[in-house]
């Protein structure tokens, strides 16, 4: 039992970091921001589920998926379909030519609810689908690709194509999916109005709670055999394979887990923002989600949360005041993170410790220096 707790909470360092994140999310932000801004933060935090998944999948296992928007979208659409059906009861939609179906179906001359929408009348099914559907898609894709030892760049390109396929597919089937406008006008969850301030507060804290739980789960997972296996596979895949492990199974698991987390994020996004559209699913949002994880530090669960908050806050600040500058900044961020800060915000602290502090020491004490020798292989290791 003690072992379990220590694996979940990690060492002193992790405990302090966890405390800091919990303090920031549960106390500092709610007390210092009005509900409009807090709702925005809540929206950003739903992306950090995707970033947390990417830390496990990309940072630890070394598999870069450019299609996490697909899973975010699938989760979001599952939730939105339930909410839309609840908002389209026959009384509220009695002016339609076919009452009881979502408004965009009526506009597209559909006469009955399509069969795949019917199960989404039930909340338990919808909630299950939020997790199961993305994982299932990830399982199929993962089985097909990892079993054939496809990885790296090819995997990234295929997943990017998936993001394009899903966004085009949703876009092209307006009658069944709401098309380009997405699913909008979501009102209540089992009669509870999600648009009120009170509901937004509740949803914000639910999101925070789930994020903190996810971080703890991630720490538990990564501190055990799974974490070691993932890192070993990332660094020397052939050796892991020669040791008799099924590499693909671990990769598939990581991919499914990341997909499920993204799905949860999507569902929470829909609950807080009140709509979902294909523009949140496509190539651009999917690759932006990667930068959230990269800015925070692709190896750090806490970094994922900070990275998401930083990039999104920067995005809304800049695109409000200097819209022309934002793309330059975003582009520069991609390049800088890759070239200068491969370990993101979380890595800057460590880099300071390793490089700057010994450097400062060098300025003060002129003596036999061991640090430059140690620093050289470290930088070489980063480049290769």
């Amino acid at each position: 039992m003690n072992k379990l707790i220590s694996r979940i909470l990690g060492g002193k360092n992790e405990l302090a970091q966890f405390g800091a994140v919990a303090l920031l999310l549960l106390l500092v932000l709610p007390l210092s921001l009005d509900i409009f801004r807090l709702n925005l933060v809540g929206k950003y935090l739903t992306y950090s589920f995707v970033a947390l998944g990417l830390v496990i999948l990309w940072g630890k296992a070394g598999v870069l998926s450019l299609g996490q928007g697909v899973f975010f979208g699938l989760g979001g659409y599952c939730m939105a379909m339930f909410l839309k059906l609840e908002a389209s009861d026959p009384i509220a939609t009695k002016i339609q030519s076919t009452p009881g179906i979502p408004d965009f179906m009526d506009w597209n001359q559909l006469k009955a609810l399509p069969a795949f929408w019917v199960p989404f009348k039930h909340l338990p099914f919808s909630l299950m689908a939020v997790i199961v559907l993305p994982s299932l898609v990830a399982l199929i894709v993962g089985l097909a690709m990892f079993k054939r030892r496809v990885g790296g760049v090819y995997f990234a390109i295929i997943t990017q194509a998936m993001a394009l396929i899903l966004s085009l597919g949703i876009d092209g089937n307006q009658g069944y999916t709401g098309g380009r406008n997405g699913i909008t006008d979501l009102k209540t969850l089992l009669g509870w109005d999600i648009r009120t301030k009170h509901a937004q507060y509740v949803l914000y804290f639910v999101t925070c709670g789930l994020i903190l739980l996810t971080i703890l789960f991630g720490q538990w997972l990564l501190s055990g055999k799974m974490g070691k296996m993932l890192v070993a596979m990332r660094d020397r895949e052939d050796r892991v394979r020669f040791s008799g492990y099924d590499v693909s199974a671990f990769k598939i698991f990581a991919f499914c887990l990341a997909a499920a987390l993204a799905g949860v994020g999507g569902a929470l996004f829909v609950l807080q923002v009140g709509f979902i559209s294909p523009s949140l699913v496509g190539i651009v949002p999917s690759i932006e989600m990667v930068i959230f994880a990269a800015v925070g530090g692709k190896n750090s669960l806490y970094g994922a949360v900070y990275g998401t908050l930083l990039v999104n806050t920067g995005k809304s600040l800049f695109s409000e005041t200097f819209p022309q500058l934002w793309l330059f900044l975003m582009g520069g961020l991609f390049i800088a993170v890759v070239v200068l800060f491969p370990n993101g915000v979380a890595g800057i602290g460590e880099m300071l410790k390793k490089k700057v502090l010994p450097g400062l020491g060098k300025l003060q004490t002129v003596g036999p220096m061991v640090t430059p020798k140690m620093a050289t292989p470290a930088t070489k290791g980063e480049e290769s």
Partner: protein
Amino acid sequence: MSHYSASELWSIFIMQGFSGLSLFSVLLLMALGLAIIFGQMGVVNLAHGEFMALGAYIVYLCSEIVHNHLPALVPYYFIIAIGVAFLAAALVGLLVEWSLIRFLYKRPLDTLLATWGLSLVMQQSFRSIFGAREVTPTLPDWLMGSFKPTATIDIPINGVFVMGLTLLLTFAVWAFMYRSRIGLQMRATVQNRNMSGAVGINTKLVDRFTFCLGCGIAGVAGAAFTTIGSTGPDSGSRYIVDTFLVVVFGGAASLLGTVASAFGIAQGQSVCEFFLQGTMGKVAVLLLIVTVLMIRPQGLFPGKVRS
């Protein structure tokens, strides 16, 4: 279809076939540069589309200059503009290789992110310099209009021009890669970098040259596209996934594979778009490609090099 006469059906068939061929040349033109950069060097250049857009903007710039200052050259400028587009894109490619790509050769996933960042920067630069609206260069008269071999068949000249240029460029790339000395060095470097270095090939220089060449070809592709459509800041990013799929689907290291996959995808897409509405045709083709790639990840014509 029964109310069409036989000759009308024949005309539809010809024109559908031509539109498929037209799409084929567009896809091939886009993919040629990437077949070199990604297929040969393994560099994932997500800014490839922006190099095409750069070529297109250069043609637009040339057209503006010629029309305002040298009206006498109007009928001929387009040919020169293609050359300028090649040089400009190659030059920017050189700069990018020198300042960014060369540090990332061993980190393909990081290259992918960095070049995506580069593509954002380039897009915004286009927007700041040329404005957000799409631009079209004034084309010389000989590129306008269409052939009419019979009363019902209508074949646009610009389509034929793009097709001709594609053929020419494909042949040039093939001749360069398989018949020239530097092409030999390039292939040697791809197959075994250390051995190539050991026999005296300057592999770093070869890398730089190869990247430059790929970007230059992208510039030519962009220049050719100005004859069939307008150019906007985000024109390039619209094509990037298709371009990569063409190269991957063909088998990354094979030029023949790229040609074959561009042909297959183009014909598939034009048939699907005839039967399915709008974007769904494209979705069907993309799904098919992705499914095939999951079953056969090495593509249609896998290279013989072991990784």
